[in-house]
């Protein structure tokens, strides 16, 4: 091992490459801190990651395996008198649960839709049976350590075997379209970039502001979300939100157009009327504006994106945020990064690397070394047994033993579903729409579901498919929360056949821990150790960015947070004489990189090569 290659001293050691951790890394490196950034995983961005189709299958498999019991090594030899150890957990079993995979695409290439045998109508009982069976297999399998990759889609095939795909609808609407098979998904799997988290970027949100301010934006490309849709009365409708949309909308009367525009204009400024409704539900305020059902639905669910009981001030604040973001880059308030959201943490890592940050994947920390008198962490021991002194430690909260975390709230979860479908929920002239779809609770007690439908133009899925992300606050398991919506809006074997909805080719359900409400400090941890929570359920990234900024300010209260990075041509690399400490740092990093490259798979290598500074002159 190349353990001796790592310097034994850093200013900031960061474990976990999620968004908040990566932003802290970039911010610290940028102002000259020596940063060591580690992740025990083989990929960047932790629960913020994007995967190829095959990568996702591997990820599913990993999470269905039970991690081996942690062997606690005794590092007390490294202790000095008065010191104490805090062991870190090296797996994060709690953050992902209830994984369920269904595959509805045919196994092999198939020319004719009509080939599929079997009656299209299946009874409710059978379906439930199948689902139950699936879950059982699931739980049984997850105990099985020998479970292989194959098992994942064997399980997926079961519903298919039991209930062959109904054949009627799609062949009518698209008679010539060739069905995409599972084999094709696997074969072209590298062209998918499937996000674990589903978010979009508010064009005036804190993430976009930070990307611009820090010049990190130069490392990525973005696409506009092209339309906002909503699910209402069993139909998908476009929500007119910009001026051009309202003008062009065919579903609104001219009077509704005026009312909507007037409402949107008037709520930008806070008025006494707004204050009078403070504390009362936003839906009540909307009702009193005499907007009518249409507009009320759009404003509540699709523009404010709040629930019926959200208070007025909060509803208005979300509405204003939406409106402020409108028109900066396009007709909707949102941007989406090309190649998926997993790009964003990597861009910040790259910035950190340019400014001397050292990166190692599959490299973790085993424990923190405490200086008891000062209650601070003075060093860490990495997974190679090396002792590394440092002044600050930032940890992804999954690494911290539960008994040391201050958990004020019962842990919340986010329910997620990821669908690969064969067409858009609202076909239009352009096949390249990127849509945010709001689905209000379909029944009392059900959560409101947010859906993001990505087209191949975002480089997240292959031509002929759409990638659909569903997200909601968990009430039950992801399958329980989301499958009713999937069944209604898409065509699966479980859904009664209704017209030409998009067919689901493959889907995945899982729950992910909700990072909302977790605080960076105040835990049973040394004062110079900070926690970053995982992704929250919100649509934007504000939570993670705020967290990163507050951690940075605690580490370096005097420094500017992510000042604009200079242009590459303005950076001086005086590597030739090698005397300066800067050059030394870069060289070390280069070596570290070399080592890393050997370890990593090809795609990641490309990212890293891009991330390296220009080679020595």
């Amino acid at each position, binding site marked *: 091992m190349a353990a001796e290659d790592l310097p034994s001293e850093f*200013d900031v050691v960061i474990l976990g490459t999620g968004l908040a951790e990566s932003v802290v890394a970039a911010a610290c490196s940028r*102002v*000259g*801190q*020596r940063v060591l950034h580690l992740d025990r995983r083989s990929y960047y961005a932790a629960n913020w990651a994007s995967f190829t189709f095959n990568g996702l299958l591997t990820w599913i498999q990993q999470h269905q395996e039970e991690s081996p019991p942690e062997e606690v090594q005794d590092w007390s030899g490294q202790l000095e008198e008065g010191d104490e150890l805090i062991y870190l957990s090296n797996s994060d079993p709690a953050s992902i649960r209830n994984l369920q995979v269904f595959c509805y695409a045919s196994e092999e290439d198939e020319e004719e839709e009509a080939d599929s045998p079997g009656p299209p109508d299946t009874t409710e009982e059978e379906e439930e049976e199948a689902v139950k069976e699936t879950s059982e297999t699931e739980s049984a399998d997850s105990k099985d350590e020998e479970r292989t990759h194959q098992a994942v889609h064997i399980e997926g095939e079961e519903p298919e075997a039991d209930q062959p795909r109904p054949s009627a609808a799609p062949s009518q609407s698209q008679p010539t379209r060739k069905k995409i098979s599972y084999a094709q998904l696997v074969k072209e799997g590298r062209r998918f970039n499937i996000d674990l988290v589903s978010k979009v970027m508010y064009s005036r949100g804190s993430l976009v502001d930070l990307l611009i301010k820090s010049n990190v934006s130069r490392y990525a490309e973005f696409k506009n979300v092209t339309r906002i849709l909503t699910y209402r009365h069993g139909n998908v409708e476009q929500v007119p939100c910009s*001026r*051009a949309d*309202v*003008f*062009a909308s065919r579903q609104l009367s*001219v*009077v509704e*157009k*005026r*009312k909507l*525009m*007037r409402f949107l204009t008037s709520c930008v400024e806070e008025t006494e009327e707004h204050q009078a409704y403070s504390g009362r539900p936003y839906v009540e305020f909307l009702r009193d504006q005499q907007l009518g059902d249409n507009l009320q639905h759009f404003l509540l669910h699709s523009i404010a994106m709040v629930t019926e009981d959200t208070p007025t001030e909060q509803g208005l604040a979300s509405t204003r945020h939406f409106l402020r973001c409108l028109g900066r880059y396009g007709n909707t308030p949102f941007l989406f990064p090309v190649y998926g959201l997993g790009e964003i943490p990597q861009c910040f890592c790259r910035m950190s690397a*340019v*400014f*001397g940050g050292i990166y190692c994947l599959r490299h973790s920390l085993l424990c923190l070394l405490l200086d008891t008198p000062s209650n601070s962490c003075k060093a860490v021991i990495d997974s190679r047994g090396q002792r590394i002194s440092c002044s600050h430690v930032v940890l992804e909260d999954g690494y911290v033993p539960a008994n040391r975390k201050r958990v004020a709230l019962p842990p919340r979860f986010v329910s997620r579903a990821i669908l690969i479908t064969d067409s858009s929920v609202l076909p239009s002239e352009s096949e390249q729409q990127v849509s945010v779809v709001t689905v209000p609770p379909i029944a009392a007690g059900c959560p409101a579901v947010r859906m993001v439908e990505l087209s191949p133009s975002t480089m997240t899925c292959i031509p002929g498919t759409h990638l659909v992300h569903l997200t909601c606050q968990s009430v039950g398991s992801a399958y329980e929360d989301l499958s009713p919506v999937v069944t209604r809006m898409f065509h699966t074997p479980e859904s009664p056949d209704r017209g030409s909805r998009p067919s689901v080719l493959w889907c995945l359900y899982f729950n992910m821990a909700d990072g909302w409400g977790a605080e960076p400090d105040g835990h049973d941890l040394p004062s110079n150790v900070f926690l970053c929570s995982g992704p929250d359920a919100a649509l934007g990234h504000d939570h993670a960015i705020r967290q990163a900024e507050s951690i940075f300010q605690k580490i370096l209260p005097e420094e500017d947070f992510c000042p604009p990075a*200079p242009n590459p041509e*303005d*950076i*001086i690399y*005086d590597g030739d004489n090698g005397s*300066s*400490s*800067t050059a030394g*740092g870069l060289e070390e990093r280069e070596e570290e990189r070399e080592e890393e490259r050997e370890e990593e798979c090809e795609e990641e290598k490309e990212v890293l090569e891009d991330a390296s500074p220009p080679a020595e002159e």
Partner: protein
Amino acid sequence: QHGRVKIKTTAQQEEEKRKEREKKLKIYVAARDACFSKRSEGVWDDEALQLTQQLLSSNPDFATLWNYRREILMHLETWSPLFWLTNNAELLFLESCLKVNPKSYGSWHHRGWVSARLPRPDWARELSLCDRCLSLDDRNFHCWDYRRMVVKISGVPVDQELAFTDRLIGSNFSNYSSWHYRSTLLPLLHPESPDAKLYSFLSEYELVQNAFFTDPNDQSAWFYYRWLLGRGTSVCNCVHVLKYFGPFLALTAAQICDLPPGTINDISNEHNLTVHWTEKHTHRDCALYTGRTESWCRDSATDQELFRSELSVEKTSVLQSELQSVNQLQELEPLNKWCLLTIILLMRALDPLGYEKETLAHFQTLKEVDSMRSAYYSDLCSKFMIENTILKMEYAEVRVFSISDKNLTTLCHLDQLLLVTHINLSSNQLQQLPPQFAMLQCLEVLEADNNSIENLEGVYHLPKLEEVLLKNNKISTLADLQPLASCPKLKRLDLRGNPVAQTPNVESELVELLPSVTDLLL
């Protein structure tokens, strides 16, 4: 600090940039001088072409160089007749120039010149270039202009162009160019009857209503709307023939013209005259009766014909339904000036007298919400009030015109009042009696008490004027009264409450200025 990446200082960067700029300037100046000397030597070769390209691609607004470039191209053209067949490079070069400055006069003009010379120009490509430019800036009028040329030469069908405006308006309806283009296309597409009813059939009203309901403060849609509602043609409707001691004159609404000498040589016979307006292809007959020295004749103007220059009246039902929808908007936006103004115009087109009260109320609101233009609204309101009074007078067929206490700020339509003998303008806000006032050749009594009149420019050569009442106005000097001296029959003049009444010796001087006045009130 340890580990901190070194960054060039601002001074270093500035220095580098300065050097860079100097270097560029040197190259540029050298190339420019080379170009000029080549031109003065009459050289039109490939090298010169290269030089102009180099210069123009960094500065596409250098008109002299474009001229030189055209000279070179024309020269090369004469050498090789197939020159343009193989020359696509010029268009590519122009595209790069347009990227530097998408609003460069020189580049667009040159592109037009090149396109016109190409034996087989690719017009589809030109149109898509325009589309691209307009999607970046839909108000790039250079591009609009070029596009019009392309459309004209290549003969793009009108309906395609209409679809093009649909697209532009759909992406941003605050665009005069698109709306205006639409208004030129529709009559081409439907030459038979470009009127309001047709456009309602074409759902043009729906389109434009969508725009002004979405954003009633955007004026482009309102202007298009007014175009849609139509423009009536103004009708010349008054003829006045009179015999002076000298030549005969035909006096029309707008002008006085000499009758050819000898047309009427004696007054013992009845004469029938026909006056033709060559510009308007219309004519009016009038008669000069035996023994009379003058003749008055006037079209009987009804409200169907008068004052309809704003909106066409043919399709009352369309206007009525439009008034309803604009009223609907006004309920939602009671203070929108475009909406109020449009309502006023529609009401006037439909029933000026019936809606008088509402119109006045809307004018009042308009002046409040758009105080910067309150004088304009006052003038417009005055105009409408005068029109209404004339209409009422038409029904009564009297020669007394009374319009007191209506907040008039201006006088207009005096051409409609040629036969009036008695005019009452008291208690308004008039500041002057304009030169056109001299048209009222039959006027005997002028009442204009309680105004703010400062001068009497228009009270001039009124042969029958006997009484002028100007109590409480702002006439301050004797010179302002000078025009009255040309009215031979003036007998009674009331100047009480005017500054001029306070000047010393005013009475004696007035007697001298206006000897005919026997009844002077000061």
